[in-house]
């Protein structure tokens, strides 16, 4: 039997040898520029070639569809139905104008119900909020099954291409990327701990900056992230707060790749906790214990103190509090805007053609998400640094927050929404329904209850800037994705805990 195994053994050796050589040289080609802070341009070339392949794939699918005399499913980012954006009063008046109006006040018509009915059904077919919490649909196919709606139209040639893509992604790109990520994080932990032993001073700060930047550069390459930074003259400076829209935990890596920031968040257990504790040894990040997070004053105090110290890096905060799918910007929590320092807004827009970066935390856990990221083609995004903003005279924190949000939305080409991103998890408060009822009552009986409120007549489309969610504690500062992750783990553990007694039986 020995002679049978020998050639096979040889073959195995050869295969292993080749993969190691290829793997190692790729690593070198990627890591060395990362350490030195140089870019060769491999990723951009890769991106251009991929685009050509995708276009070809879409053309093939369209041809296939035409042969069968059908249409390709094309998603419309503008919505499914045409909605009229008129107010409640306007629409009810229109309803009345066409009906009989013989009765004296108060004016009620049975036809009024149709307004609420149509509005309700419209929101069932297409609403502004729930679609922000799932990945965006693509116009053309990018050879990933996860984004394909036209499976019927795939020809043999296309399937082969897809299979090839699958092979490349999972057997070459994925292991390479995982190795890179592991080295990046490992280096970060080890080097920051070492630097932590150096006494405070310019050397420590200098080394810490270099180490952080290097590690983030390696991590960026591990995701094959192709980032274009615009308007770098507006980059956040010390003593300020950097505010950005939130799509994925990777946002942090994307931004920290180009500058040094102090992170804010809750300290976790596990691997993330290890990284957090190491990072804080060499540079002043702001980590909170879980109990401290609820204490609003403590949080505000620590942030203010950090900001007052001009030697410390700008704080990075995501005021939406949760991941949104990068088609819109949702309500900014006002906490960061109350501190009273300069705010540096940053808009991040991902190009979903190469891999959707959005983390749907209700569908995927963190590990699953990272695997998906690392087996996509690439993560392509644009980062715009917007001119710094400060709170103006007579502007309260909420108005300031909305102003910043509007600026970010305009720059990133995102829809500016007033809805709270927390509606992903929580139920909307009853007060909003009560507002609708109030508006309708006014139409019925007129403006009898004029309590002399200073607030101007609000359009029904605008929502109050208080907590929109029922029974939610104040968690203005915690980057929610990390919290989501630990909550999920907790839930899973509880489930497992309740399952085992059954198993024993």
């Amino acid at each position, binding site marked *: 039997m020995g002679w049978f195994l020998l050639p096979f053994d040889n073959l195995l050796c050869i295969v292993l040898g080749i993969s190691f050589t290829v793997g190692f040289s790729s690593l070198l080609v990627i890591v060395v520029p990362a350490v030195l802070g140089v870019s060769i341009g491999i990723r951009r070339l890769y991106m251009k070639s991929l685009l050509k392949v995708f276009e070809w794939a879409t053309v093939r699918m369209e041809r296939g569809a035409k042969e069968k005399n059908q249409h390709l499913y094309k998603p419309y980012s503008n919505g499914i139905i045409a909605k009229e954006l008129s107010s409640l009063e306007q629409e009810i008046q229109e309803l009345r104008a066409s009906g009989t109006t013989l009765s004296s006040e108060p004016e009620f018509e049975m036809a009024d119900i149709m307004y609420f009915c149509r509005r309700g059904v419209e929101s069932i*077919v297409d609403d502004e909020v729930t679609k922000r919490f799932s990945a965006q649909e693509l116009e053309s196919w990018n050879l990933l099954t996860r984004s394909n709606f036209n499976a019927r139209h795939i020809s043999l040639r296309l399937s082969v291409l897809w299979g090839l893509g699958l092979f490349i992604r999972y057997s070459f790109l994925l292991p390479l990327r995982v190795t890179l990520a592991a080295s990046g994080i490992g280096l970060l932990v080890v080097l920051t701990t070492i630097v932590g032993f150096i006494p405070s001073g310019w050397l420590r700060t200098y080394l810490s900056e270099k180490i952080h930047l290097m590690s983030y550069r390696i991590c960026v390459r591990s995701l094959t992230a192709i980032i274009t930074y615009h308007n770098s003259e507006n980059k956040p400076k010390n003593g300020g707060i950097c505010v950005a829209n939130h799509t994925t935990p990777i946002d942090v890596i994307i931004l920290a790749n180009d500058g040094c920031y102090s992170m804010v968040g809750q300290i976790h257990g596990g691997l993330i906790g290890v990284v957090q504790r190491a990072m804080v040894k060499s540079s002043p990040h702001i980590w909170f214990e879980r109990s401290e997070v609820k204490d609003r004053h403590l949080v505000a105090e620590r942030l203010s103190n950090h900001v007052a110290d001009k030697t410390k890096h700008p704080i990075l905060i995501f005021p939406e509090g949760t991941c949104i799918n990068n088609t819109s910007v949702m309500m900014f929590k006002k906490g960061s805007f109350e501190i009273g320092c300069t705010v540096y807004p940053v808009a991040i827009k991902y190009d979903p053609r190469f891999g959707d970066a959005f983390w749907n935390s209700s569908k995927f856990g963190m590990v699953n998400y990272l695997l998906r990221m690392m087996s996509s083609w690439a993560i392509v995004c644009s980062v715009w640094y917007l001119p710094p903003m400060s709170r103006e005279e007579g502007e309260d924190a909420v108005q300031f927050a909305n102003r910043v949000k509007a600026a970010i939305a305009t720059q990133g080409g995102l829809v500016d929404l007033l809805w709270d991103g927390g509606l992903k998890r929580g139920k*909307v408060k009853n007060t*909003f*329904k009560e507002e609708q009822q109030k508006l309708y009552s006014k139409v019925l009986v007129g403006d009898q209850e004029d309590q002399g409120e200073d607030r101007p007549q609000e359009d029904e489309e605008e929502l109050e800037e208080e907590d929109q969610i029922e029974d939610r504690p104040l968690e203005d500062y915690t980057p929610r994705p990390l919290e989501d992750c630990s909550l999920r783990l907790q839930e899973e553990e509880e489930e497992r805990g309740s399952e085992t007694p059954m198993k024993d039986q």
Partner: protein
Amino acid sequence: SGSNFSTITVCRELHEMGFHVSHSQITRLYSRFTSLDKGENGTLSREDFQRIPELAINPLGDRIINAFFPEGEDQVNFRGFMRTLAHFRPIEDNEKNKDPTASEPLNSRTNKLLFAFQLYDLDRDDKISRDELLQVLRMMVGVNISDEQLGSIADRTIQEADQNGDNSISFNEFIKVLEKVDVEQKMSIRFLH
């Protein structure tokens, strides 16, 4: 994924119902249906609807949700979902498919009016009693109008509509009251093609 679903079968069924939708519209609505279906079991429960914030703040949200569920059932499948939505298709689209032998389409003026009527008719006994009208009015106005005022509104409405003196509004009386209202336009949703 969206197109695994047999849109051809659903298309045919809907055409028989008088609901003429294109493939892309069905795929789009199916995509919407699955995104609402958090339990991923092919049906929607009332909670799935209530998760839509814009619907949750609609004063008649619960009544509208109820319209999707047949009597006594807690789950609605895609067919049922489409069947209910069929009422809201614009009437002018029917002009292309004039078939005198076909049954009345779901989006006819009468059927749209029936949909609105059933929002009022809480116990599904084919008439709107004073009590039912009061309850629905209360849903629409919340706490902002007193019981007496609301009562007189209800009384006046029934007085104007009731023709056979049974102190409730039947479907035919309802149709008469709304004969001048542009039901076709107010109870229609336009799809972007």
